[in-house]
């Protein structure tokens, strides 16, 4: 699924990485627990989370995750966006809940990791 299609499905705002929207991601993972995200062996995935802080961006950086969707209408602050930009990430912000976002993307064909 292309990142731009994910943005459409989730009615999301693109707050960083508008040049990355044609990138394909195969899998998705939803978690507010960064410790779990750090145990994943997959990297070409989009992370859906309501954990909106700098460590979410750092976690994605270390785990080679190139796209994050912040759910529940939460907004990334400038410091987070600067770090995301530095790492070439795409940041989306959706008004939907984590459950609804995950369900819509699953329905649209995005695969789970497990």
């Amino acid at each position, binding site marked *: 699924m292309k990142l731009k299609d994910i943005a459409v499905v989730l009615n999301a705002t693109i707050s960083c990485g508008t040049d990355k929207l044609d990138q394909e991601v195969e899998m998705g993972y939803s978690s*507010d*627990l*960064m*410790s*779990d995200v*750090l*145990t994943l062996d997959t*990297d070409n995935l989009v992370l859906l989370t309501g*954990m909106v*802080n*700098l*460590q*979410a961006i*750092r*976690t994605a*950086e*270390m*785990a*080679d995750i190139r796209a994050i969707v912040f759910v529940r209408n939460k907004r990334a602050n400038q*410091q987070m966006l600067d770090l995301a930009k530095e790492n070439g990430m795409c940041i989306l912000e959706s008004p939907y809940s984590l459950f609804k976002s995950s369900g819509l993307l699953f329905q649209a064909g995005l695969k789970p990791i497990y």
Partner: protein
Amino acid sequence: MKLLFTIQGGDFTRAGHPSSEVKKVLKQLDIDGKTIKNIVIALYEAEVNVVAHAWKGTVSVEIEENKITIWVSDEGPGIADIELAMQAGYSTASKEVREMGFGAGMGLPNMKKNTDELHIESEVGIGTKVKMVNYFS
């Protein structure tokens, strides 16, 4: 090549800075992506542990031709029972740390998973020293 960083306990905004710098250096050295990911995840977990539990710490990195050795040392409460702390799910993290998305008792097991060698020494009330080695494939 040697690199040295300091970590301030409680300062989550800076957690990940050493890992990020090490990642950049390893990329420049053209180390394989999977190996880099293992190394920086282990280091990041160690950094988060220092920020979450200790008062202050240092990260010392030595990169040689075939391996990287990382020492993370802190002044802090120490770990009373290392074997127990290595068990997945065991945690003494505060509510604040859990609210940051960490403190689920996964850090030490994940460091073990991502390193070729992991040595932990700790003294209660003094601090903890972690040594991690990864070989380049």
